[in-house]
């Protein structure tokens, strides 16, 4: 997103748009919606506790402990996930590393999984009844706690880092590496001083995105952290356990400080410093063979990570078909029968996911259209449309409860509150996809239409709508998949009439119905993969991800 100073407003164009009631109305409508569903809930959270309550935070031992734990987890999980993502990205962008296509497709799998799935599968695999730890190795391992969470978050979030870093590495012009070699540098020096040096801002950006995700991670933490307090889970505990709305608001307010800082850092500092654009890309110079140590080292590492990802899926599917995990390994369909009773929750998930997808798509495309005009205040709209990317899911969940639990806008208890919270939380992805599409639109087409006397809305309808259909579909799909698999927001907003599948699964895990939980998770996966397949066919590329919830 190019950030232009306000001074470059072309007043002629502004006048033309200001006189166009359609555009002016759309602008006002978008501003009101973003204000109502992005800013207002955030504002409600921050002002719900009194100043005195904020001042007392340092005196609460548990909260300080949770804050410390969250920050420590953020640092260590971000380090390992980014490092793993970097090695992986390096391997899959080298033409001579075997199996790179396979690695690349298997590594994106965790992105489509429900956020608690890695933790759940690893309990089945590496817990005390773990297939690997107990049955195969005969160990007595305790996976609950910070070390288990660290492992889980590394596996869950490294694909995010990998996708970003792959984009950066692919942008590096191989001729730079050639130049270094011609100057007599050996392979290590090339990797160190050219490839990695050029990728540095990209890596920093990936690390920041991962850090936000780790801080906001609720699903894995709630399943595997055991008695280890973290800010994200503490917020839910406050709300659920004690009906302490004020406490929940305070905790998520603590959480928002680091996430917003990381977000601003990534958006306005790191992404400005991408060196790869200096040389451009598309050079046809062949890459020389990778150094064998690097080649096979990264290959082995990719194999290891692929096994770790494979175990996630294997664990859940096997868990759903095993009679009694860890004790009776006969195949049984009893868990599937139990999960069949929960089909209504899956339908609720799909319904709410579709509602959220439509809202994300429509609002994302509309806001992208408006910010592509040279209107005053468009930076404000742009900022509001990407801001949810900085907000942890638990913050959005608490915010919607506080903002819409009473008249005039009473949405708690309806499916709309879930759909709107999820839709606006996923808005940045839909919006950015639409912005990218709009950048490709030839301005002259539109100018021609305007000169022929078409109004702004007419232009939108006849020229942009057909062009933006793909952007809409992309936004719809991402929002749908993430809404269907979301946990962090829905735990705050479910009501008896709107119980969604992820909530039912989390309940089953908590109540020890692990087989049923595994079967229901498998069903949910089938739905998400089917929609990913459809989306890939229609849109043809995977959109960049944002914090998981």
């Amino acid at each position, binding site marked *: 997103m190019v950030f232009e100073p306000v001074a470059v407003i072309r007043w002629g164009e502004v006048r033309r748009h200001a006189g166009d009631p359609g555009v002016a109305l759309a602008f006002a409508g978008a501003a009101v919606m973003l204000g109502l569903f992005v800013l207002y809930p955030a504002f409600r959270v921050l002002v719900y506790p009194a100043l005195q309550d904020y001042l007392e935070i340092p005196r609460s031992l548990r909260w300080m402990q949770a804050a410390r734990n969250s920050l420590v987890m953020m640092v260590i999980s971000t380090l390992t996930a980014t490092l793993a993502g970097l090695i992986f990205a390096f391997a899959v962008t080298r033409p001579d590393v075997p199996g790179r296509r396979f690695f690349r497709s298997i590594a994106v799998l965790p992105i489509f999984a429900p956020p608690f799935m890695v933790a759940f599968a690893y309990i089945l695999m590496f817990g005390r009844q773990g297939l690997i730890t107990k049955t195969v190795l005969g160990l007595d391992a305790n996976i609950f706690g910070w070390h288990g969470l660290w492992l889980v978050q590394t596996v869950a979030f490294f694909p995010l880092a990998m996708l970003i870093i792959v984009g950066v590495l692919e942008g590096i012009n191989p001729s730079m590496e050639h130049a270094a070699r011609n100057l007599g540098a050996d392979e290590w020096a090339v990797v160190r001083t050219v490839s990695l040096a050029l990728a540095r801002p990209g890596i920093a950006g990936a690390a920041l995105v991962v850090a936000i995700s780790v801080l906001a991670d609720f699903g894995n933490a709630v399943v595997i952290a055991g008695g280890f307090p973290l800010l994200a889970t503490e917020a839910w505990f406050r709300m659920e356990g004690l009906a302490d709305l004020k406490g929940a608001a305070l905790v998520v307010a603590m959480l928002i400080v680091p996430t917003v800082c990381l977000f601003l850092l990534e958006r306005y500092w790191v992404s400005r410093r991408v060196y790869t654009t200096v040389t451009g890309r598309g050079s046809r110079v062949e890459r020389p063979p990778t150094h064998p140590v690097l080649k096979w080292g990264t290959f082995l590492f990719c194999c290891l990570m692929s096994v770790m990802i494979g175990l996630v899926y294997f664990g859940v599917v096997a868990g759903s078909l095993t009679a009694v995990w860890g004790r009776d390994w006969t195949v049984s369909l009893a868990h599937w029968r139990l999960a069949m*009773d929960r089909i209504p929750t899956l339908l609720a998930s799909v319904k709410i996911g579709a509602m959220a997808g439509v809202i994300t798509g429509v609002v994302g495309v509309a806001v992208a259209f408006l910010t592509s005009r040279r209107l005053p205040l468009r930076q404000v709209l742009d900022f509001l449309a990407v801001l949810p990317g900085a907000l942890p899911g638990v913050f959005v969940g608490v915010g919607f409860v506080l903002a819409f639990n009473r008249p005039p806008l009473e949405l708690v208890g309806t499916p709309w509150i879930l759909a709107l919270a999820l839709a606006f939380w996923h808005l940045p992805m839909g919006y950015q996809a639409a912005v990218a599409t709009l950048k490709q639109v030839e301005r002259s087409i539109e100018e021609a239409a305007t000169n022929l006397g078409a109004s702004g809305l007419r232009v939108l309808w006849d020229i942009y709508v057909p062009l933006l259909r793909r952007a809409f579909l992309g936004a719809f799909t991402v929002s749908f998949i993430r809404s269907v698999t979301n946990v962090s927001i829905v735990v705050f907003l479910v009501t008896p009439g709107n119980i969604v599948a992820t909530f039912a699964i989390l309940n089953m895990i908590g109540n020890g119905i692990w087989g049923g939980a595994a079967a229901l998770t498998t069903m949910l996966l089938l739905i998400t993969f089917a929609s990913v397949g459809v989306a890939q066919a229609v849109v043809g590329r995977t959109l960049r991800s944002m914090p998981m919830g």
Partner: protein
Amino acid sequence: MKRLIAMGLLLALVLVGVGVSQAQTTRIVVYSALPDLETTMVNREFTKRTGISVEALSVAAAGTIAARIRAEKDKPRADIFTGGSRDFHIPLAREGLLLAYKSPAFAEAKVSPVYIDPDGFWHGWYLGALAIIINTDRWDREMVPRRVPKPATWDDFLRPEFRGHFIMPSPITTGGGYIFTAAQIFRLGEDRAWAYLRALNANASQFTPTAPGTITLLARGEGIVGMQWAHEGIGARLAGMQPLETIVPPDTGFEVGAVSIIKGGPNPEGAKAYVDFLASRTPQDINAKFGYRYPVRADVPVPMGATRFEDLKFVKYDLAWAIDNMTRVRERWTREIGR
């Protein structure tokens, strides 16, 4: 034109989806602190009997349900709070969030008045006792060779051999956890009780946010000894083939699992019918057969594998004190134990 039609269809689809979920009049909303299975079965029977459909949210943590009811007090969304010990219903009644209703069905069923609130704010429909639960697999492997005697009293939890192997439900979110904590205070007096709880914390591997979570972890051998409702342990052994042994120690605490009507809920008449229904044999039978909880009706058989309720030895449980001090005790737990 095609585009218009497509958009119109999309809109219609969303609207239909929302329309389907609109409220009906012959429906009640139930918050249940019992596990999903029993809740679903009981509700199915209720619908069969009365024709009133049930929307249920079951979270096996009474503290959590009570928290929800408080959070929604300006506009209650549920009619019924079922399950969970009366310890969680009484504070809600005091705060004026429950509707008084003296169920004639409970009187007809000759349920002992001990289990019914004289003002009609709550009706007890099942009973449970706290117990020591042991994972026999790990016990035989790790404790028998070291000649550790099986725990028989609450104090045995503090044995150094159990460090890192003890699990119980959280006193903050669950009824069982809180009643256990209160039982220690009645057994030892406040100061010694907290010393006991701190020592217990040193042995604990975790405090689970829901009651059944403790059984899960024990059954899978994530812990060796734990504290939970006897019926949960017995149920997991009989129905789930889990390697668990259940021992009810002296000075145990008990729950009177209650049902109450939320004041200002959408369907008070349906709610009354639900309370009446719980006095009948069918739901208590389901609860005894599938949840292994003691019925309050004399004519429903005691759950399989359980001692008669009258033969258990209870601590002198001061209900009024336990309720008056609930918030304070939980706050102190948060402060001193911190998990």
